[in-house]
């Protein structure tokens, strides 16, 4: 019997056990025979193998450094260039802080912009504005970083940072010399980069809310703002949450734009005006010139740390949202 892949599945024999097996196999077999089944499994397998291979090869390459420094590698605060020791803890804090600043700035603005585009804008304005927002997403990271470095840095050093320093209540968060490159500036640049994601996905989610819900709110006497607040946003909640999670992932992984505006200072500080460093900026500054051996292995360790943190934040965020949705279900 030739075993060509294009051979159709043979008809079941009369033997009862065999017959049941064959019947089950025929039920699961699809038209096109084994070729299609093989291609399906191959496609899924290639994708899974790629992701698994990426993670495994990164973990393997970083194992030298982790074994050398011990588990303290992942929260170290000291930078020793001669011993190839990187302050991973400083970078993790920097990543989380800049991402938080970016979300605080981009999510409210993005949601308001999305609400405006989907509910309030006249049709002749909504289309070009949407295109403009999408164009921001198309700008390469290095261009945004360069713009931040050349245009925003002097503005921040001369106007924005002194302004924040002068506000007496926020002194704990905004103190120290106004240098220009800082966590605040990096957060603002990241906010500019994640804004299109938030706006586009939230707008799609809001437009997906049933017209009937909106009309019901209007019928009950809601103003336009109240319609948005009570009918549209809750109805679009899952889409908006997906947008925020996606934006968070992008903000955490950004490298070159952050490296150009964050000031690359490897020390713990609680002032947003101080220069700092993130995992992304540290990786891009150190990987190209890392000497083979422990140095390169340590930088790959930073990559693995970034991978783990991004995965944790993503998964954690989704679990949190799912738990909240379950709690709110009647």
């Amino acid at each position, binding site marked *: 019997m030739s075993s060509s892949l294009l051979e159709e599945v043979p008809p079941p024999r009369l033997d009862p056990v065999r017959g049941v097996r064959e019947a089950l196999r025929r039920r699961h077999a699809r038209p096109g025979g084994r070729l299609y089944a093989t291609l399906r499994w191959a496609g899924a397998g290639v994708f899974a193998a790629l992701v698994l291979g990426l993670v495994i090869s990164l973990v393997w390459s970083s194992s030298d450094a982790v074994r050398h420094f011990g588990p303290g590698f992942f929260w170290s605060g000291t930078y020793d*260039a001669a011993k190839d020791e990187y302050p991973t803890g400083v970078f993790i804090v920097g990543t989380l802080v800049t991402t938080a600043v970016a979300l605080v700035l981009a999510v409210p603005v993005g949601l308001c912009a999305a609400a405006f585009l989907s509910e309030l804008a006249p049709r002749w304005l909504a289309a070009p504005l949407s295109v403009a927002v999408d164009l921001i997403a198309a700008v390469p990271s290095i261009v945004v970083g360069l713009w931040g470095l050349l245009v925003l*840095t002097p503005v921040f050093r001369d106007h924005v940072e002194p302004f924040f320093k002068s506000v007496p209540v926020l002194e704990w968060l905004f103190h120290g010399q106004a240098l220009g490159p800082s966590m605040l500036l990096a957060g603002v640049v990241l906010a500019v980069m994640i804004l299109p994601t938030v706006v586009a996905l939230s707008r799609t989610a809001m437009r997906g809310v049933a017209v009937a819900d909106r009309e019901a709110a209007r019928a009950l006497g809601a103003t336009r703002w109240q319609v948005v607040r009570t009918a549209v946003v809750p109805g679009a909640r899952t889409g908006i949450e997906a947008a925020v999670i996606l934006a968070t992932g992008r903000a955490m992984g950004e490298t070159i734009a952050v490296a150009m505006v964050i000031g690359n200072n490897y020390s713990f500080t609680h002032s947003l005006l101080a220069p700092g460093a993130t995992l992304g900026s540290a990786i891009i500054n150190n990987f190209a010139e890392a000497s083979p051996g422990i140095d390169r292995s340590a930088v790959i360790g930073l990559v693995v740390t970034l991978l783990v943190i991004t995965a944790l934040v993503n998964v954690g965020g989704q679990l949190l949202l799912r738990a909240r949705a379950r709690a709110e279900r009647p």
Partner: protein
Amino acid sequence: MVEHGAKGAGRGPGDHGRRPRRTGLALTAATALALAASACGSSSPTAARHHTASTTTTAATGAASTTTTAATGAAPASTTTVAKASAPASHSTTPPSAACSTSGGPLSAACDTKSPSLQVTGAGANSIQPFFTRAFYFYNQADHGVNVNYSPAGSSVGVSDIQQNTVNFGDSEIPIKTPATGTGGAILQVPVDLGGVALSYNLPGVSGGLKLDGPTVAGIFLGTIKAWNDQAIKALNPGVSLPSTAVVAVHRADSSGPGYDLDQYLIDTGGSAWTSSAAGTTPSTKWPVASVGVGQQLNTGVANYIQQTPGAIGYVEYAYSLQAGFTNAALKNKSGGFVTPSQSGIAAAGAQAAGLSASNFNIVNGPGSGTYPLANFSWTLIYQKQANATLGVVLGKLFDWVTTTGQNQAAALGYSPLPANVVALAHQTLLQLQNAAGKALFSS
């Protein structure tokens, strides 16, 4: 959706065809205008090169011709006699007895521009980029067959690229630890350039030449000196009125040759404050004290930040500092003199390199009243055994030209021409080039 139906009524397929063509024409015109504007722009390095070329026309005409007499006579008027004397003295001005051969033959200045046609790729130090860009351009004018593409990604990238044999040559401010080897065998290290590191600052109201020594510079980069009118700086500069502006120390966020030089200088002169800090006692290309001040990428990033920020001080390759017109500090050298970076100061540092080799390359903090303490040679890395003999011949002739005739281009940009003994060392090293069978590519 409702809107699509309402809006789409007036649009036909013909409109879609016309619009892309018009926008395409507009885009091409805009790009052409932008290219023309950038070529004429006064702040571009190309324009700066043309500007310096016009003031040193003799150098340009000298480099274009291939005879050695033009090379010796074309040293720019601004360099001192030290530089003139360092022009290729080891090569005779009479043509060699053997005719120039494109497949080897003698390695001499007369034959440097007679090589086979080839595209050459290289990667390495950011600090040598201005010199290489200019030198390779002039070499191409003289020998139209050779095009060199150099990627200034950093010294370490140059080293790892050549070790993995992904580029034809590498360049590093710090030579590879001998014995230097890669996947293609032994690596030759050829000194091609003598440059210096300027400590540039931006202090409105204070002119150039502010005197600084090892301990004060260490204090600045460690964060212990926080304002420009600190006692330590005032003590070194009694007659200068210093503002109370805060000091902003700028370092290189990536690995750098200038950082290595400054680290070496501070280990030698900065006292226990520097050596007991994270810096330690071994210089490193990664700036060791990254918890103070701001870090920027590459010489251009540091230069741009210093330009923007009053009170900033940082280290840049002297060529970049010259181009940007920075005010530079006068550093204390081993003999106690305060010297600002200049071609003569850097040349004096280069003249200290008596027994220069890839394992003995340090010329930081040299003695002499006019010696600038932060200077270093740049080393080109090529495989000794060239699997492709044509490539070997091209590389040998190219870098022989760079170390002899090409040094005129270095002087125009702020580097110092190589001293005679270093030119001889470069020549001797290039003579070691072999083909795949182990036979020398050049006869003499």
